[in-house]
C-alpha cells in the first residue's frame, strides 16, 4: 500500500534527479576567471568555515564537560549538613549511655540489640572498595576504608574504642566511654558521611528532667565521636542501603532521629532474602559501633533508666531501590542540543523493624513527584544512533504515603537534586527511539524530618531506559 502511494514520488525522483539544464556549460570562462583570481582565497574561506564548524563542536563538548565538572564539583564540595548539630543533639544521649554502660556489661546488652555488627562492618569494608570507584572520589573511598578498619578492633576487644585518630574519642574517659563508636567518616575531608541528626529541643529538655541534679555535663556533650561508619555516597543501582536508627517518642511528642548509621550492602537484587539477611546479621550481637549504641539503649531498659524509653523505639530500616517512572518532553534547538522537562514519579519503599518487635518488619511506602529541567547535548549523531550528555536539576516533593508515626511522610519539604547523565539512543525510525541513560544524582541537604533515601544517600547512580517519541 505504501509502495503504491509512494510510486509517483519514485517516478518524480527519477524524472528530476538527473535533470540537466541546457547551456549550463557556457559559464566556464567566468569560472576560470574566478579560479585565477581568487580560488586560494575562496578555499581559505571554505577551510575556515570547516574550522569554525569543528570549533563549534569543541565548544559544545567544552560546555558539556564544564557542566559535568560543575555537577561533580558541587557533589564533592558541598558541605555536609547538620554535622555540628548532630554532635550537639547526640551528646546528651551519649551521656545517658555512658552512665548505663557502667552498669551493664556490654556483651549482655549486645545480645539483644538490633545492631550493625562487626560482620556487617567487615562486609562493608569489602563493599566499600567496590563501591568507591563508581560512587565518589578516591579520597572518599579511603575514608570509608579507614572507618571500617577502625571498627574492627572495637569489635574484637569490646573496648570503648573510639576510633584511633579520632580526636574526640581520645578525649573521652576510657572507663566511661561506652562502646558507642560512631565516628564521623569525614576525617579525610571527603563526602563520606556517617551521622545525621535533626535538632530537637524538647529532647534536651527531657534529658534535663532525667538528670535534675547533675544535668548534662557540658564536656560530654561533645565527647562522642559519632561513628558511623558509612558513606552516604554511593548506593548505586542494585545496592541496598541498610540503616539502623534510633527514634523516640515520649508523651506524644515525636522526637526526631537521635542518631543513626547506615551501611551499604552490595546487593544486585533487592530481594527479601538479602534484606532479611542484612538485618539478621545486624542483630547477631557482635560489638561494633552501632551495636553499642543499641546495646546501651537496652542497658537503659535493664537499669530502669529513664532513657529506656528510647530503646524500644530503636528501628532498623532498609531502603529498597526507588522505582521511577518519567515522562519527558523536550524541545530541540539547533542541531545538537535540547531542553527537556516533564514529570518524574518515584515510589520509595523502606522496610523497618522496631527493636521491641524483633524481626517483625513493616514497609513504609512514599510517593514522590518531581519536575526536572535538563539540557541535553548530542556528542555523536549518526543516522540511527545518538550519544549525548545531559545535565540539569529537579525539584521533587513527597505526595504522601504510609503514615506511620515514626516514619511519617514529609509532604512539605522540597527535595532539590542536581543530575547528570550520559545517554545513548538507537533510532528505530524517525519518530521512535530506545535509549539508555546511566546517570548520577545528588540531592541537596534539606530540613526534612522523615527518613528518606534522598537524605540517607544523597549521591546515587541510576540507569534510566525507555522509549523516546519524536513528534
Amino acid at each position, binding site marked *: 500500500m505504501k509502495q*503504491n*502511494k509512494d510510486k*509517483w*514520488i519514485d*517516478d*518524480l*525522483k*527519477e*524524472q*528530476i*534527479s*538527473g*535533470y*540537466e*539544464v*541546457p*547551456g*549550463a*556549460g557556457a*559559464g*566556464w570562462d*567566468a*569560472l*576560470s576567471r*574566478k*579560479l585565477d583570481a581568487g*580560488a*586560494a582565497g*575562496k*578555499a581559505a574561506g*571554505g577551510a575556515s568555515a570547516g574550522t569554525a564548524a569543528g570549533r563549534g563542536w569543541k565548544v559544545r563538548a567544552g560546555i558539556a564537560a564544564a557542566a559535568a565538572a560543575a555537577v561533580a564539583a558541587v557533589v564533592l564540595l558541598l558541605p555536609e549538613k547538620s554535622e555540628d548539630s548532630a554532635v550537639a543533639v547526640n551528646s546528651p544521649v551519649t551521656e545517658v549511655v555512658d552512665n548505663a554502660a557502667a552498669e551493664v556489661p556490654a556483651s549482655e546488652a549486645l545480645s539483644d540489640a538490633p545492631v550493625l555488627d562487626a560482620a556487617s562492618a567487615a562486609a562493608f569494608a569489602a563493599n566499600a572498595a567496590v563501591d568507591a570507584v563508581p560512587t565518589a572520589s578516591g579520597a572518599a573511598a579511603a575514608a570509608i576504608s579507614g572507618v571500617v578498619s577502625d571498627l574492627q578492633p572495637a569489635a574484637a576487644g569490646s573496648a570503648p574504642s573510639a576510633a584511633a585518630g579520632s580526636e574526640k574519642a581520645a578525649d573521652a574517659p576510657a572507663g566511661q566511654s561506652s562502646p558507642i563508636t560512631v565516628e564521623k567518616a569525614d576525617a579525610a575531608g571527603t563526602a563520606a558521611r556517617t551521622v545525621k541528626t535533626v535538632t530537637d529541643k524538647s529532647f534536651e529538655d527531657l534529658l534535663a528532667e532525667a538528670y535534675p541534679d547533675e544535668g548534662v555535663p557540658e564536656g560530654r556533650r561533645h565527647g562522642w565521636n559519632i561513628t558511623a561508619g558509612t558513606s552516604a555516597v554511593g548506593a548505586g543501582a542494585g545496592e541496598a542501603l541498610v540503616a539502623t536508627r534510633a527514634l523516640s517518642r515520649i508523651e506524644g511528642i515525636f522526637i526526631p532521629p537521635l542518631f543513626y548509621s547506615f551501611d551499604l550492602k552490595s546487593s544486585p537484587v533487592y530481594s527479601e532474602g538479602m534484606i532479611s539477611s542484612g538485618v539478621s546479621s545486624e542483630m547477631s550481637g557482635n560489638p561494633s559501633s552501632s551495636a553499642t549504641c543499641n546495646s546501651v539503649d537496652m542497658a537503659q531498659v535493664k537499669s530502669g533508666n529513664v532513657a529506656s524509653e528510647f530503646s524500644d523505639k530503636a528501628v532498623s530500616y532498609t531502603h529498597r531501590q526507588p522505582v521511577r517512572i518519567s515522562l519527558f518532553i523536550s*524541545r*530541540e534547538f*539547533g*542541531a*545538537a542540543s535540547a531542553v527537556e522537562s516533564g514529570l518524574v514519579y518515584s515510589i520509595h519503599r523502606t522496610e523497618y523493624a522496631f527493636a521491641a518487635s524483633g524481626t517483625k518488619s513493616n514497609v513504609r511506602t512514599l510517593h514522590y513527584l518531581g519536575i526536572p529541567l535538563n539540557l541535553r547535548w548530542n556528542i555523536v*549523531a549518526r*543516522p540511527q544512533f545518538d550519544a549525548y550528555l545531559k545535565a540539569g536539576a529537579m525539584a521533587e516533593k513527597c505526595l504522601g504515603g504510609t503514615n506511620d508515626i515514626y516514619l511519617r511522610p514529609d509532604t512539605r519539604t522540597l527535595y532539590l537534586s542536581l543530575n547528570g547523565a550520559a545517554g545513548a539512543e538507537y*533510532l528505530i525510525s*524517525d*519518530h521512535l527511539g530506545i535509549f539508555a541513560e546511566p546517570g548520577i544524582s545528588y540531592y541537596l541537604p534539606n530540613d526534612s524530618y522523615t527518613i528518606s533515601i534522598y537524605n540517607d544517600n544523597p549521591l546515587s547512580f541510576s540507569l534510566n531506559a525507555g522509549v523516546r517519541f*519524536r*513528534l
Partner: protein
Amino acid sequence: MTERELYDGCLAGDRNAQKELYENTAPSMLGVCLRYLGNRADAEDVMQDAYIRIFSSLNKFHYKSAGSLSAWMSRIMVNSSIDFLRKKSRLQAGLPVIEGAVPDIEEEPEPSSVRSVPAAVLMDMVASLPDGYRTVFNLVAVERMRHREVAKMLGISIGTSTSRYQRARRMLARMIESYEKSTK
C-alpha cells in the same frame, strides 16, 4: 577523458581537465542547484561557487569508482545550495502563511502518470514550492535522507521536517493532477 582521468588531471591543477569536467557536469549540477533554489540566477551563482570549492578541495576526495566523483560534486552542490538558502534566511521565510493554506487533513491525490509529465515541467513545479518545503522535499524524496538527518542538517525539528515533506507532497500531487487534467 574518463572521469578518473579528469579527476587526476584536476587534482594536478590541469586547467583543461577542469574545463572538461565542468562542461561535462555543469548541466546536471545546475539541475541540482535549480532543484533546491528554484531560480536559475541563484542556481548559477551557487554552482559557480560550488565548483570553486570542488576544485580547491579535490585533494580531500578519494576516487573510488566511476560515478563517485559526480556523486561527491552533487553533494557539494546540495550543501552549497542549502548554505545559500540559510544565509538568505529563506529556509523559514513565508512559511507560516503557506503552511496554513494547505490543511493537514486534506487527502493527498495520487498522480498516476508522472512519467508522462516533462521533467522541465516537474522542475517548475518543484521550483514553485516554498523554499523550506522544496528543500525538505528534495532531501527526503530525491536524496533519500531520513527526516532525522534532514532535521539536523537544517536545524529544524523532525516534526517540522515531516510536516513540510507531507505538505510539499500534497502540493506537488495537486499540481501534477491539475497538469494531467489540463493536458487531457
